[in-house]
C-alpha cells in the first residue's frame, strides 16, 4: 500500500517536472524514492547511467538528438509509469524484457516512482556499480 501511495504521489508531482530541469543533482534520493533508485542502480544503470560508452545512454542520445529530451533516463521528466512498464516488460532494440523474478511488480512501481519524481528529489545521478565500489574502497 505504501508503494501505491508513493507512485500516485510521484505521478502527481511529475506534472510539474518540466520546470525542474535545472535542479541540483546531489546527495541521496528522497527517502520514499530509495527503493526505486536501488532498482534503477541494479537493473538500469549498467546501460543507462550518466556515462559515456553505455548502450542505452548512447542509443537514446542519438535517438533524441536535436530535441530537448536527454539521453540519460534519470534526467527525463516526460516518462510515465505505463511507458516505463512497457519497456521493462517488452524490451526494445538490444534491451531484452525483464521478468518478474528479476524486477517484481513492486520493484517496477518503485522504479516508475523514481523516474517520474521531481528531479530535485532524485538526488545525485546513480553511479555504475564499479564506480560505487571503487569509491567505497577508496574511503576505507
Amino acid at each position, binding site marked *: 500500500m505504501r508503494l501505491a501511495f508513493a507512485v500516485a504521489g510521484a505521478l502527481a508531482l511529475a506534472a510539474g517536472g518540466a520546470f525542474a530541469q535545472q535542479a541540483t543533482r546531489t546527495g541521496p534520493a528522497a527517502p520514499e524514492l530509495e527503493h526505486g533508485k536501488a532498482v534503477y542502480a541494479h537493473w538500469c544503470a*549498467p*546501460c543507462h547511467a550518466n556515462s559515456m560508452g553505455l548502450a542505452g545512454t548512447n542509443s537514446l542520445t542519438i535517438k533524441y538528438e536535436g530535441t530537448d529530451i536527454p539521453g540519460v533516463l534519470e534526467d527525463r521528466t516526460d516518462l510515465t509509469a505505463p511507458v516505463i512498464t512497457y519497456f521493462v516488460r517488452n524490451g526494445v*532494440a538490444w534491451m531484452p*524484457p525483464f*521478468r518478474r*523474478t528479476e524486477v517484481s511488480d513492486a520493484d517496477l512501481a518503485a522504479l516508475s516512482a523514481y523516474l517520474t519524481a521531481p528531479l530535485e528529489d532524485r538526488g545525485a545521478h546513480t553511479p555504475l*556499480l564499479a564506480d560505487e565500489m571503487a569509491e567505497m574502497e577508496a574511503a576505507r
Partner: protein
Amino acid sequence: MTTPPGIDAATFADGLAAMRSAVGDEWVFDQPADLNTYRDFYSVLWGEPEEKLASAAVAPASVEEVQAVVRVANERRIPIYPISTGRNLGYGGSAPVLSGSVVVDLKRMDRVIEVNEDNCSALVEPGVSFFDMYRHLRESGSKLMMSVPDPGWGSLVGNALDSGGGYTVAGYRGHFEAVCGIEAVMADGELLRTGMGALPGSETWQQYRMGLGPCLDGMFRQSTLGVVTKMGFWMFPTPEAWLSGSVSVMRYEDLDELVRVANELEYGNLFNGMPGFSSPVLTQENPIAMAMIPEPEVMNRMVAESGVPAWSFSPNFYGPERVIREQWAYVKSRFEHIPGVQFAETGFVDLPLSPDDMERIHKPRFGIPSLEIFSVGSRGYGNFNPSDGHIWFSAVIPRSGQGIIDANRVMRAECERLGLDLFMFAPAVTCWTRSFVLFAAVPVYKDGRNEHLRDAVREIIRTCASHGWGEYRCPPAFMDDVMEAYSFGDHKLRRVNEQIKDALDPNGIISAGRYGVWPERYRHLRRDGGAA
C-alpha cells in the same frame, strides 16, 4: 493455453496446480504477458511458427522447492527447462530448446552461500549474478577476484554450465574449468553432490574436485541431466598488479613463430593472464572486425606502406610488480630472434583499483562486471544499427598461426559468399585453456531476414566441420546442426549422451534437445528427424 508436446491439457493443468502448491501461486506464470518475458529476445526464429516458447514458467526459491517441481514434472512427464538468470543472450536467453517446456526460473535462488577467503573459493546458487557477486565481494572486503564474461548480469552458475569465459587468469577465466563441486536435483527429484560433496561432513567440497570414481561435474556442462542448485568455484586472490605488453611483428610469415613461442610461454606459466592475438594492419578499418587475411606479398606490402605491424601478441600478467616485470622481460627475450620485432608495455595498474583507474581499464580484465559490451550493438562499429540483437558463431580452431589464417579466410569467404554480415570478428579468442576459438558476432533482425541467416549459418557450420572445426557453444536453433558435426564413430558421442540421458531421465523431462541430446520420447524432434 499452450501445452507441452505429448501432454494433454488436463495433465498440464494438474501439473501447474501442483507446482503452485510447491512454490506459491505468484511464482507460476502461464499468462501471455509473463511468458513474453521468457522469449529468447535475440532468437533467429523470432515470430515464426518454429520459435521456441515456454508454455509456463515456475520460479522455486529453494532446493526443496526445485525438488518438488521436478517430482511434479517427472510424475506427469512434463518437460522442464531450467535457467539460472536467463541472460545468455545470443545463445538462447531464457527460452527452452523444446518449445512448450516449462521454464524453471532459478533467479530467486540468489544466495552467496559461502566465500572462503583462505581456500579462495565460493559456493553460490544459480540466481547469483556477476553483479551480485561483485557487490558481495567488495562490501565484505574480500581479497578475491572474480572472472566475469563481458555482460555482468549473467549467472556464475549458468555461465559456467554453458562454458562461458572471462579475461583473467588461466584456470579461472574458462569458467567451467574453475568449478569445484556441484549440487544438482536429478530427474527423479533426488539430490546429487559431486566430488567431495558426496562425503557427509567433508570440508573439502571446494578443494578436491574429483572425489572418487568418475568425475561427474562434466555431466552437467551444456547438459540435460539435472537442475544445478549449487556450484563451487575456485577464485583468484586479487594480485598486487597487472601488466600488459605487446609483441608486434612485421611480416606475414612471422605469425607461426609468434603463436608457437607464445603458446610455449603460456603452457610454461611464464604469463598467467589471457593473451590476445591480432593483426593491427588488418584491423585499421574496424578494430573489432578483422579483415580477410590477404596473400603474403599483399599483406607485407600493406605493412611496408602503412608501417602498421602485421601481427601482434599481447601477454597479460597478474602478480607482484617485481615478479611480473621480470616475466615480461623474459617473454620479450623469447621473441628477439624475429626480425623487426617491436615491444611495448601497453598497460600497468597497481591494485586495488582507484576510482580513476575505472575510467581507463577494460573492466572484465579485473573481474569487474558491466554491460558496456552492449554498446558495440547500439550505434557502435559497422553499419548494422539498429539491429535487434546478435548471435555468436564460435568454432574451436587449431592453436597455431596457420589455424588463424585458415579459419579467418574460410569464415570471411563463406560470409561474403552467403551474404552474412559480421559486426565482430576475432579470429583467435583464448579464454579456454590451450585453445583458440574463432569468434564471430552476427546481427539478427526481427524483420524477416532470419530465414536467410539460419540457412547461411547452417552452411557455415558444415563448412567448418569439413575443416575439423566445431563450435563450442551455439544458439538453440543450431544445436542439432552443431552436434551433428561431432560425428566420429557414427555419432557415438551423441549416442552415448543419449544412452546416459535415457538412463538418468527415463521420462525425458529435463532440457530436451539441449546441445543436440534428445530423450527417447522426443528424439523424432531432432532436426534430422531422429534418424541418427
